[in-house]
């Protein structure tokens, strides 16, 4: 039996804000969360641009022992999870059983690896490294910390698939619930923000060089785009088996009704002509939805010359020309990397609940392929019933989530 999968809570710690309401306002206003960090220039970065999550007082009280095993981005994820749990109205005790899981997308914990190596060179004895770094430096540090923090007894693992990590994490969580193997899963993604984790990416020349005007640097689909801006944060969703959520009287924000995945099977860094399109087709097929029912595409588009063009071609190939509104929230957030797929699901749930579509800021001049898309340049009132969220990553991995929303009225 295949079950429906409800979204009953969302949480976000983003460069746009640290609560759903702050982020909703920023998405409506078309606010940018990009800043210049001049220190990166003196280190030899080609671009000093980055997203920035300002320090904030956590609402979740973590002990010093808990913080020892948590890098900053895991603390952000804990905060996002707390928001999602609170919104869902579920008793946190209801997560302490084998029917509850945690699946997060993450593909590095770079800063902690650097820290442990530096500390050893200084101390000359591994005994001086302390107890926390071994946990902090693992890629799965996010699921192991969230699992123990929320006392999860079911699925508990991290999914690594480059910039599609958390798109796949949300999709896999939905599948496990749909197939009756879990009743609820906290899922999402998180991404660290520091120069240590981004220097080798900068080496590829992939980042925007519009350093004198940071808020205009990320310009997905625009003809003058010159690269992405690295960013980060944490996004969380509480997914529940629809009938279980309904029975406990939960407010259902939406559904993860479909999940498609594919791999290009071609190039490690250059996306293919058809890979993302195949993932979108699979998402539609698993949901039993038609292309004409899709009311909005939250694009992966990161502001790179090749990637955005390929996504535009994939969208046109499946939907035809200018049939469905499209925007990339990365125009405001920068590229949230491991976090991006789950972040798009959270942003889309926010938009659906408030009945608007966020703009693709800085889209001024279309190129050959983006001219064939209906790109949203200013927040647009709309109540889409079906939203597709695309993500794609190095190695040619693609994820597409199909979210379904009930009519508000």
């Amino acid at each position, binding site marked *: 039996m295949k079950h429906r999968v409800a979204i009953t809570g969302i949480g976000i710690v983003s460069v746009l804000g640290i609560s759903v309401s702050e982020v909703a306002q920023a998405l409506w206003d078309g606010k940018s969360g990009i800043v210049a960090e001049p220190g990166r220039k003196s280190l030899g970065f080609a671009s000093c641009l980055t997203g920035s999550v300002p320090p904030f007082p956590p609402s979740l009280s973590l*002990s*010093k*022992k808990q913080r*020892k095993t948590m890098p900053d981005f895991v603390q952000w994820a804990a905060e996002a999870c707390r928001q999602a749990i609170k919104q869902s109205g579920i008793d946190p005790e209801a997560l302490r059983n084998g029917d509850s899981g945690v699946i997060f997308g993450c593909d590095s914990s770079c800063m902690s690896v650097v820290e442990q190596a530096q500390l050893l060179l200084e101390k000359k*004895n591994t*005994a*001086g*490294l*302390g*107890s*926390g770094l071994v946990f902090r430096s693992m890629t799965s540090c996010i699921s192991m910390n969230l699992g123990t923090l929320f006392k999860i007894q079911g699925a508990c693992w991290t999914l690594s698939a480059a910039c599609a990590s958390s798109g796949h994490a949300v999709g896999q969580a939905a599948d496990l619930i749909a197939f009756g193997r879990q009743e609820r899963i906290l899922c999402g993604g998180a991404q660290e923000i520091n120069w240590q984790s981004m220097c080798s990416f900068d080496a590829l020349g992939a980042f925007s060089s519009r350093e004198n005007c940071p808020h205009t640097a990320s310009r997905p689909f625009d003809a003058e785009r010159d690269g992405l801006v690295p960013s980060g944060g944490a996004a969380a969703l509480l997914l529940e088996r629809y009938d279980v959520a309904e029975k406990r009287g939960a407010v259902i924000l939406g559904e993860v009704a479909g999940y498609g995945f594919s791999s290009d099977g071609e190039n490690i860094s250059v996306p293919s002509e058809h890979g993302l399109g195949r993932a979108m087709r699979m998402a539609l097929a698993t949901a039993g939805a038609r292309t004409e029912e899709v009311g909005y595409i939250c694009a992966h588009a990161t502001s790179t010359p090749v990637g955005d063009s390929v996504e535009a071609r994939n969208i046109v190939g499946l939907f035809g020309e200018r049939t469905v509104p499209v925007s990339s929230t990365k125009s405001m957030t920068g590229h949230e990397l491991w976090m991006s797929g789950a972040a798009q699901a959270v942003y889309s749930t926010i938009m659906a609940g408030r009945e608007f579509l966020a703009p693709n800021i800085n889209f001024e001049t279309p190129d050959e392929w983006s001219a064939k898309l209906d790109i949203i340049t200013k927040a647009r009132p709309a109540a889409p019933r079906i939203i597709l969220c695309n993500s794609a990553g190095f190695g040619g991995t693609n994820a597409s989530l199909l979210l379904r929303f009930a009519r508000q009225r």
Partner: protein
Amino acid sequence: MTDQKVIERANAALAQEFELDLGSMLPDALFREDLGLDSLDTVDMVVVLEQEFGIKIGKDPAIASIRTVGDMHAYILGKKREISPSPE
């Protein structure tokens, strides 16, 4: 530095690291059973004591036999000659 001063500094440093009530750090208090510390905390105890007193402990096998707060005091007093003066 008096033995009492060494004990006070050791207690204060460990209480801060492990978020313990200073009043609970009685000489016969068991780290594991009474104060709730685990094997990971033992790793950090070494780091904290090294930092607090400017001494080298490293992987000293004697650490494994520390069970009570009093054991810890005896261990650190045994290294008293290595202890650097108080930073105060």
